[in-house]
């Protein structure tokens, strides 16, 4: 068993108990905790114990520094808030006084004690217990040195939507190389599907296209369109990324983007991506006229030649012989120092909200379908018409919050739906003169100029009904309902049930994480929440970094947001990356797992577990090794190793058992634990 003595009895430990104003002192008798520690933990090496109003203030820190110097402290325990907040602060204070920062231990008596208890006596006792645990633990701490790794100046940006484009341009403008990877044949993302953007009603293409062109022609940006990242190795500063360039079957060297191949292709396919399923494209296509790059791709599963062996119309008519049916996928490996993920969102599939009839009732549209209807480059050239392609609606119902703010689907608010629905209402008015109803739960028009836009749409005569729509049906009850879609809703302001017959229904569907978000998260070694949004390092103070060093996120991959926020995040992520690049190197936390090779038998149980891909196996020696630069110290492999051959710095058996012993020392001191031993 663990030896519970202060090794050689030499450690001189300082204990500092923080009041945190009344945050802690309101529920814990901090003076008592400090005097108790000085008295009862003296035999454990505590030579000084103080309480102070705000330990994190510069005066509090100076107190520690002074004691280290004057009292010759060799270990420091601070009882305050969660280590998440101030561990770095107190480590730095120790370092300033010449003590290795890793000889400092922070125990939480705020989040884990004062904020969660209501009995002051018990809370004080518990504070003593956790403090005692910290003291026992700190005895076993070792001085550690951070690892320094160089930062490769190149950056990988994954996702060519507006957030990714912005991030790529910012980094490239600073003079550093960027690899921009986009899954679709063209960059542009969802923004390229819109006609107008709220609240200014700017033409989406007009403001996006220049950015796309910049990204496509920038000397420092290497664009990989129609490509996907297949493998990521390495660690912050030094990632090796494999990119699969899917075969376009069009030779980019020869193609001029003239478009004849598309014209001549006999195969028409429903375009599920760019046209949101509402329009057609050919089997060889560029998704939209302003596409960057301009080169088309051949959609192999739909190409007549690939399926039946004959056709080759595109090849026959291509003036530059750019069609290449033999082309194969190409794998490119690049070195980068940092990665920005901006892979965006999918639209919620409203088929599952069966009562709204999407998929059954022809004239129920999703918001993205409607965007295409209004787009001058869309399937109807911007005409707002019913599914028959000709009839103009005389009345339109727009349903907010479809699949969001609904515990059956997604609890969260999708942020953009209110403004988007207002934009739709405006466009319907402007282009058809139809009566427009907006069905909303709450109207959320935060941010600049948004509420003004709401008022403008109100003045235009859009009818607003507050209530969650119960049903959209074609089952008419009254003669005037025949042939219409009837929206059944409780008008919660008037407290009446309404049946409103309309010609067209638009569902403002929620933003949801990409269908493959979990796989992408795993590929890059970051975590996503259970519903699939990628998790930022800190929701307020570090919104574009992740828990994995060197991986940043921007745009809707982190959660629903509008265009301005996506652009801001793209820029923010690039600023973080540029800071890193300019430092030239980065110091990594030395909290790492290590393998004791003499104990490792190469059973390979741990090999597949590392979320950061830090584990490698040496076939020749039959032992596992952990790459210290990749390891984030999460402890997964430590727990899994059946031989106990892997240990985690700062979380050794000795430290953990000592901490438990320390905790027990207070709580159970009268219970004669010895009986069990």
């Amino acid at each position, binding site marked *: 068993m663990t030896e519970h003595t202060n090794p050689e009895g030499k450690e001189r430990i300082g204990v500092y108990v923080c009041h945190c104003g009344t945050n802690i002192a309101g529920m814990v008798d901090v003076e008592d905790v400090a005097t108790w520690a000085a008295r009862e933990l003296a035999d454990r090496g505590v030579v000084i114990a103080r309480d102070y109003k705000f330990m994190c203030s510069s005066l509090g820190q100076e107190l520690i520094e002074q004691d280290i110097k004057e009292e010759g402290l060799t270990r420091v325990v601070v009882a305050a808030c969660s280590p998440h907040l101030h561990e770095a602060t107190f480590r730095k204070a120790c370092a300033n006084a010449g003590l290795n920062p890793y000889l400092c231990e922070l125990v939480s008596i705020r989040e884990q004690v004062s904020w969660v208890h209501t009995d002051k006596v018990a809370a004080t006792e518990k504070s003593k217990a956790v403090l005692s645990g910290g003291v026992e633990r700190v005895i076993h701490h070792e001085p550690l040195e951070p690892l320094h790794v160089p930062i490769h100046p190149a950056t990988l940006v994954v996702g060519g939507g507006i957030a990714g484009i912005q991030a790529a341009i910012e980094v490239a403008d600073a003079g550093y190389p960027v690899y921009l990877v986009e899954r679709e044949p063209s960059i542009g993302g969802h923004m390229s599907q819109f006609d107008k953007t709220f609240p200014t009603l700017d033409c989406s293409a007009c403001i996006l296209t220049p950015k796309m062109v910049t990204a496509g022609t920038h000397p420092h940006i290497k664009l990989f369109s129609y490509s996907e990242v297949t493998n990521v190795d390495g660690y912050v500063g030094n990632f090796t990324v494999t990119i699969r360039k899917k075969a376009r079957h069009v030779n980019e060297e020869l193609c001029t983007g003239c478009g004849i191949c598309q014209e001549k292709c006999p195969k028409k396919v*429903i375009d599920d991506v760019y046209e949101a*399923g*509402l*329009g*057609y494209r050919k089997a060889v296509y560029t998704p939209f006229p302003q596409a960057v790059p301009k080169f088309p791709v051949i959609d192999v599963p739909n190409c007549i030649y690939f399926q039946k062996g004959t056709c080759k119309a595109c090849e026959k008519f291509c003036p530059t012989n750019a069609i290449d049916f033999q082309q194969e996928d190409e794998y490119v490996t690049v070195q980068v120092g940092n990665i920005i993920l901006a892979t965006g969102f999918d639209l919620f599939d409203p*088929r*599952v909200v*069966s*009562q709204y*009839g*999407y*998929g*059954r*009732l*022809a004239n129920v549209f*999703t918001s993205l379908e409607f965007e295409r209807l209004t787009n001058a480059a869309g*399937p*109807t050239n911007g005409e707002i018409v*019913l*599914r*028959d*392609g*000709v009839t103009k609606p005389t009345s339109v119902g727009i349903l907010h919050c479809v699949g969001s703010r609904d515990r059956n689907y997604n609890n969260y608010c999708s942020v953009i739906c209110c403004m988007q629905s207002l934009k739709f209402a405006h466009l319907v008015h402007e282009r058809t003169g139809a009566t427009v109803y907006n069905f909303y739960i709450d109207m959320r028009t935060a941010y600049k100029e948004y509420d003004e836009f709401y008022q403008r749409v109100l003045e235009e005569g859009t009818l607003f009904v507050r209530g969650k729509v119960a*049903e959209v*049906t*074609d*089952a*008419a*009850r009254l003669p005037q309902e025949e042939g219409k879609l009837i929206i059944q809703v409780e008008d919660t302001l008037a407290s009446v049930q309404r049946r409103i017959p309309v010609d067209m229904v638009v569902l403002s569907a929620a933003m949801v994480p990409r269908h493959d978000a979990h796989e992408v998260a795993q590929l890059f070694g970051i975590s996503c929440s259970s519903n699939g949004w990628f998790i930022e390092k800190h929701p307020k103070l570090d919104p574009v970094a992740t828990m994995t060093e060197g991986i940043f996120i921007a745009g809707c991959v982190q959660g629903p947001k509008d265009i301005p926020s996506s652009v801001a995040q793209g820029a923010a992520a690039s600023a973080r990356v540029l800071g890193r690049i300019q430092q030239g190197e980065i110091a990594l936390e030395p909290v790492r797992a290590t393998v004791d090779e003499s104990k490792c038998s190469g059973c390979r149980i741990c090999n597949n577990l590392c979320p950061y891909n830090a584990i490698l196996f040496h076939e020749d020696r039959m032992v596992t090794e952990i790459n210290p630069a990749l390891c984030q110290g999460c402890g997964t492999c430590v727990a899994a190793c059946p031989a106990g051959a892997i240990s985690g710095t700062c979380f050794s058996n000795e430290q953990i058992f000592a901490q438990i012993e320390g905790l027990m020392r207070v709580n159970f001191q009268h219970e004669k634990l010895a009986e069990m031993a």
Partner: protein
Amino acid sequence: MSKYLFYPGCAMQTSARAYNESMQEVLGPLGLNFEEVRDWNCCGATEYLGISTVPAYALISRNLALASRQSNGVKTLVASCSACYLNLSKADHYMAERPSLGQMVNVALAEGGLEYTPGTLEIRHLLDIVINEVGLDVVKERVTHPLKGLRVAPYLGCMVPRPDYEKRWSDYEYPDELDRLLKALGAEVIDFPLKTHCCGGHMAQISPTTAFELIRRLISSADNYKADVMVTVCPMCQMNLDAYQNETNHYFHTNYKMPVLFFTQLMGLAFGIDAKKLGFGRELVSAKEAMSRIGIEVPQEEPKTPARRKKTTGLPMPKMPGDEEETQ
């Protein structure tokens, strides 16, 4: 032969005799063996729970207690009537969720020497058993006389898919179980928008005009879709739509003649069972004319569907799950 306990409920012996007769006929072909709960009593229908709580649950639970005593290892209790199904599962659910209620009900049951532990039985509707236990593959195998050319409006009513304590149904607003079953029988199934709307329930008795309006909505919608018959899974729905159709016509000056049948009757027909054995003729709005359409050899020509879906000049419709199956 899979064995199940069976709770018929009052209507199966009276107003829904056709349901009972046709069900008995198809049990064999489906490989189902139903053992009736001995000396069961009324479930309280839609009335008892409005009047009282403990007595109402005690009334229902007497059946659960009798069934569990009789179960002999059989866990599933099948109900054919939607109201019975809902009441039985409701009692089982709330006795577990509110232990004090469960206790009181058991105190009352003890008076009759009975007891019931919630969760002992698994209460399921007949349609659920056919779809999820027998399976559509077996149903399809049994079909010898596909109901080709018969346009049917599948109508479930409100009590089967809601509130669905055990999450057995595909969707509580728009479940497709009955649609899939009728498709398997070869019928042409319309996408009936009111499939889970209310038939009026006991409103036919206490507020006839309310009921007439609800009945009219259902019948006229089925008629708009040119349905030959409506198909139900519930005695009360059938009763309201069939028996009060004439009065409804009278009230609104309409002239609907929409036959309302039980799904088991159509299953029997598709299995090649004589219509007489299946309770045909008991309906008040005769199904004779509608049935004559499939009695005669219908040519293989596909009837035209209403212009609701894909028109070549129009914009494409979103793909729905199941679309692929149809095209194959």
